[in-house]
């Protein structure tokens, strides 16, 4: 699975996710990626793209939950994402997210996630494992 989230100079948010799914999946199996609110979601507060085990990401409505915690609990992006990822079964979820204010978060409860980010403020990161 691959994905990208962005907030532009005008504060507009967007997300995109694409995948081939699971190795050896049954023909016709749908994962989380095209299920809006599970693997992919954006509103005026944040944009999220998730990756991992689709069935778990759907059960836990991962992408929408990050936005909902920001919306209803006023959590900052990093806390919202950390709470959702920690709440899913270990080894099943990774996500990247940005907020309207330009915060970036890359969280996963798997051993690794191929990830990269950059901000106008000059922060960049490219990584696989969490060192």
């Amino acid at each position, binding site marked *: *699975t691959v994905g990208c989230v962005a907030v532009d100079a005008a504060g507009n948010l967007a997300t995109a996710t694409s995948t081939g799914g699971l190795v050896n999946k049954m023909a016709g199996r749908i994962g989380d990626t*095209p299920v809006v609110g599970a693997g992919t979601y954006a509103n005026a507060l944040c944009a999220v793209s998730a990756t991992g085990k689709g069935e778990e990401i759907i059960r836990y409505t991962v992408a929408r939950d990050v936005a909902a915690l920001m919306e209803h609990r006023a959590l900052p992006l990093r806390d919202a994402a950390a709470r959702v990822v920690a709440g899913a079964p270990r080894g099943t979820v990774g996500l990247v997210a940005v907020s309207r204010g330009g915060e970036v978060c890359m969280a996963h409860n798997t051993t690794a996630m191929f990830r990269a980010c*950059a901000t106008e403020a000059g922060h960049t990161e490219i990584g696989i494992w969490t060192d």
Partner: protein
Amino acid sequence: MGWALALHGGAGDVPRTLPPESREPRLATLRRCLGLGTAALRDGRAALDVVELVVRELEDCPHFNAGRGSVLTADGTVEMEACVMEGATLRCGAVSGLSTVANPVSLARLVMEKTPHIYLAFDGAEAFARFQGVETKDPSHFITEQNIERLRQAKEANRVQIDYTQPMKGPQQAPQETPAPVDDNSQTG
């Protein structure tokens, strides 16, 4: 705080011993895509254009599980899916079951922009692609030797795998009709 972007190439049980010939091409693609996205944002491009541009690049890279390099179904075929969403308007588009569309993310955007729907799948999605005239390929374009081998290993182990699951050694239990308890490692490796 200004513009920002983040991208991913999948998550899973990636061993620290991942050999350079597997690690470096992926990191190089992430670096190149980050550069493309950053330049586009610096030029004032809209967030929706940027995420589509970046994901198209990642779909074209055979080292990631999307577009070319998609993993295979139990039948040895490719069934790709994608989704886009725009935050300010809550507009979104999604596709599933694609086997010939070169860049599924762009078809997902066309569903959002050219139809009253959100989600088109399988034959309907493929027919929409033809109608829209997006670039299509022979299904074989998406299949790599590496993923043929991964499917063979998964079949041998009798299970499905998320990105980067490592092959397990020794006899495995058959996949269960109902999802196994999450702590059953054979389902996630």
